[in-house]
C-alpha cells in the first residue's frame, strides 16, 4: 500500500478541561472517500478542523503528504492551499460575487493571473451547476447555491484532499440534493474526501469507508456495508437506530 495522503497519530485536542479528542489514529489513502459519523459532541468536526489546523491539536501528530503539519516549522498556509474545506455555514465572502469568491484566493495565494483565475472560476462554477449565477452576490443565492459556490471556491485551488464539515446540515431538505450530487461527482472523479455528515444515503452510496466516532475516540470503522448493516459495537448500533 502506498503512503497515506493523511496520517493521524495519537491526535489529542482539549478546550481547557474539556477533552474533545482523546486519542485518534487514522490513515487516509489517496482517492478514499471517508465518511465520519457520530453523535454531536463526539469530536468529528474538531478532528476535521485539526487536519488543516483551524484547531491547534494539543497532542499527537498529523502528516499531510509526508509533511508534518503539526510541526511548528511547517508553514501551514502552504499546506492549506492543498486542503480544501467546505463549512456547514458556507462562509462565502458576502461582499464579493460568486465569481470573485472563487477568484480571490487563486489570485492572492496562488498568484494566478486575472485571466486564468477568471477562467478557472467560471469553469468550476459551471461544474457545480452555477454557470448562470457567476455575477450574483451570496445574499442573492439560495443556501444550496451558496454551498455549491463554496465547493467551487475550494476546488479552484486544486486541492489534493477535500474536507466537508456537515455541509448539508444548514440546508433546507429540498436543497440538499444538489449539493450531494456535486459531492458524488467529485468522488467519482477520484478526489480524496473526508466527510462529516448525517446523510446516510450519501454515505452508503459514495463512501469507501465509514468511521463511527463517539466521545473523542474512533469506535468502529470499515466499509459502509460493514458499519451500517453489521455494526459490531453497541454504541454504533444505538446511534444508527436513532438515525433511522
Amino acid at each position, binding site marked *: 500500500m502506498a503512503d497515506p495522503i493523511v496520517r493521524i497519530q495519537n491526535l489529542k485536542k482539549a478546550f481547557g478541561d474539556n477533552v474533545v479528542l482523546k486519542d485518534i489514529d487514522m490513515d487516509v489513502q489517496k482517492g478514499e472517500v471517508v465518511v465520519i459519523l457520530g453523535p454531536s459532541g463526539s469530536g468529528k468536526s474538531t478532528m476535521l478542523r485539526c487536519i488543516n489546523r483551524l484547531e491547534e491539536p494539543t497532542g499527537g501528530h498529523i502528516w499531510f503528504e509526508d509533511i508534518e503539519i503539526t510541526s511548528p516549522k511547517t508553514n501551514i498556509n*502552504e499546506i492549506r*492551499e492543498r486542503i480544501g474545506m467546505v463549512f456547514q455555514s458556507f*462562509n462565502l465572502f*458576502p*461582499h464579493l460575487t460568486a465569481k470573485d469568491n472563487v477568484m*480571490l484566493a487563486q489570485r492572492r*495565494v496562488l498568484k494566478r493571473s486575472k485571466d486564468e483565475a477568471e477562467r478557472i472560476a467560471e469553469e468550476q462554477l459551471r461544474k457545480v451547476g452555477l454557470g448562470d449565477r457567476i455575477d450574483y452576490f451570496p445574499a442573492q443565492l439560495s443556501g444550496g447555491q451558496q454551498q455549491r459556490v463554496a465547493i467551487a471556491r475550494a476546488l479552484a485551488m486544486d486541492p489534493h484532499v477535500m474536507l466537508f464539515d456537515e455541509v448539508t446540515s444548514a440546508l433546507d431538505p429540498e436543497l440538499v440534493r444538489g449539493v450531494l450530487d456535486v459531492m458524488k461527482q467529485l468522488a467519482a472523479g477520484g478526489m480524496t474526501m473526508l466527510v462529516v455528515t448525517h446523510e446516510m444515503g450519501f454515505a452508503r452510496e459514495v463512501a469507501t469507508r465509514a468511521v463511527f466516532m463517539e466521545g473523542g475516540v474512533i469506535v468502529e470503522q470499515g466499509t459502509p456495508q460493514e458499519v451500517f448493516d453489521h455494526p459490531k459495537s453497541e454504541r454504533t448500533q444505538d446511534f444508527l437506530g436513532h438515525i433511522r
Partner: protein
Amino acid sequence: MRTMRRSRGLQRLGALLCLMAVVALVVPLAALGIGAAGTTMTIDQTTGGLETRFTYETATAPGETVLGIDFAFPEGTDTAKATADAVTLVGLQRSNVTVETQAKGTSVKVIFSPSVEPSSTLRVVLHDVLTTYAGGKQTVSGTYTTQTGTHKLPPMTFTQGAPTVSQRIGFWLNRQPLVKTWNSVPILNAFFNPQLIAISIPILFWGWLLSIALIGVAYPVAIPIGLATAFLKMSKLAPVRWIASAYINVIRGTPLFLQIYIAFFGLPLVGIRLPDFPLGVIVLAVNSGAYLAEIFRAGIQSINKGQFEAASSLGMTYAQAMAYVIIPQTVRRVLPTMTSEFILLFKDTALLSAVGIFELMMNAKNSAANTGNVTAYTVAAVYYLMITIPLINWVGKLEQRLALSEGASGSPGTKTRKSGALEGMARMAAPVTADAGTPDDTDGR
C-alpha cells in the same frame, strides 16, 4: 536833517511793529472768511453708504454776513433725509441759529435765520446725509451766499471706506420699513436680525472654511490611527493591548475641551511649539482616533469568525484575510458609525475657538460680541447644519441599505438590530456581544 533821519528810522520801526502785530493777529484768526484755512469738516462714520453726520466748522470774515451755504456732496450721496442745525459764536456769545434745509439730489442748502454776522465762528451740523458707497477721499464743494452775492465754497475733503456687498445689503435692509417692523420684535431682532444675517454670512464663511479644513485634515489622519489602535487592542501581546487600552480610555474618558487646553497650554511649557492649525488638527485626530479604534474593533469582531476561517482554509495569511475579507466587510458595516463620528468631530471643531483658532464658532462669537446680538450664532448654526444635515440623511440611507443587504441572507429584523447594537457598542465600549447595546447616537463625550 539828523532828526528827520532819526524820525524816519522810527517810522520804519513803527511800520515793522505794526506789520508784526497784524501778522500776530491774523494768524490765530486764519479762519476769517467761509471755507478759509482752519475750516474743518468731520464725519461720524468710517464706512460709506451709511447715514452720516457732517460737522462743518468755519468762521465769517469781518464785514461778511452769511445768509446760507449750499453744500454739494459727491456723486451717489442721498441728502433727501438730511437735516441741519447751526450754532454761532461771536466773542463769547453763543447762539443757536434756526436753519432751513433744502435738499436737492446730492446737495443740501442751509439758510440761516438770522443770518450769520461778520466775525463769528460758525458750526453747521448736517444729520442723516446718506453717503456714497465709494471709498477713499471724497470732496464736498458748493457755494455760499453773503450780502454781496454768491461765492464758491472752497472744497473740503473727508475719507471713508467702501462697504462690502454684504454691508451694502445690510445698510439697505436697515432702511426698509418692513425690516424695522421685524426688528421691533425682540426675539426676531435678537436671533434673526436681517442686517446682521447679511453681514455675518461672508464673515462666517471664512471661519466655516477653516472648520472644514480642520476636519478635512484631522479625520483622514484619525482613520489610520483608529485602525492601528484597533489592531493593537486585539493583539496577542498583553502589554500592547494595555497601551492601546490606555490611549483609548484616557481620550474617551476626558473631555475634548480639556485635551485642547493641555495641547495648547501644556505643550508650550515643555518646549513643544506648533502653529495653531497643525496643533488643532493633531488634537482632533488623536481624539477621534480613540473613538474610531473602538468602532473598528467592534466592527472587526462583529464579522463572523467563519469568514476568517474560510480565508485561512484557502491558504490566506492573516494579513491577506484582513485586507481582502475582513476589512472590506468591516468598512461597509461601520460606515454609518464612522460618519456619525465625523459629524461629532466636525461639531467639536467649535471647541478650538477657546484657544483662539478663527474657525466658525470663533467668528460667530466675535460678531456677536461686536454687535451685541446673537444673530451671528444663528448664521453659524446654519453653516454647521449645511454639513451635518446631508450627512445625517446619508447615514440613515446607509443604515437602511446595510440592513437590506445583510437582511437578505437572514431575518431582516435581527440583523438590523445587530447593526444598531454595533453602533451603540462602539460608543459605549461595551463588551462585544450582539445584545450588549442599544442604538445610541448620543455623544458620550
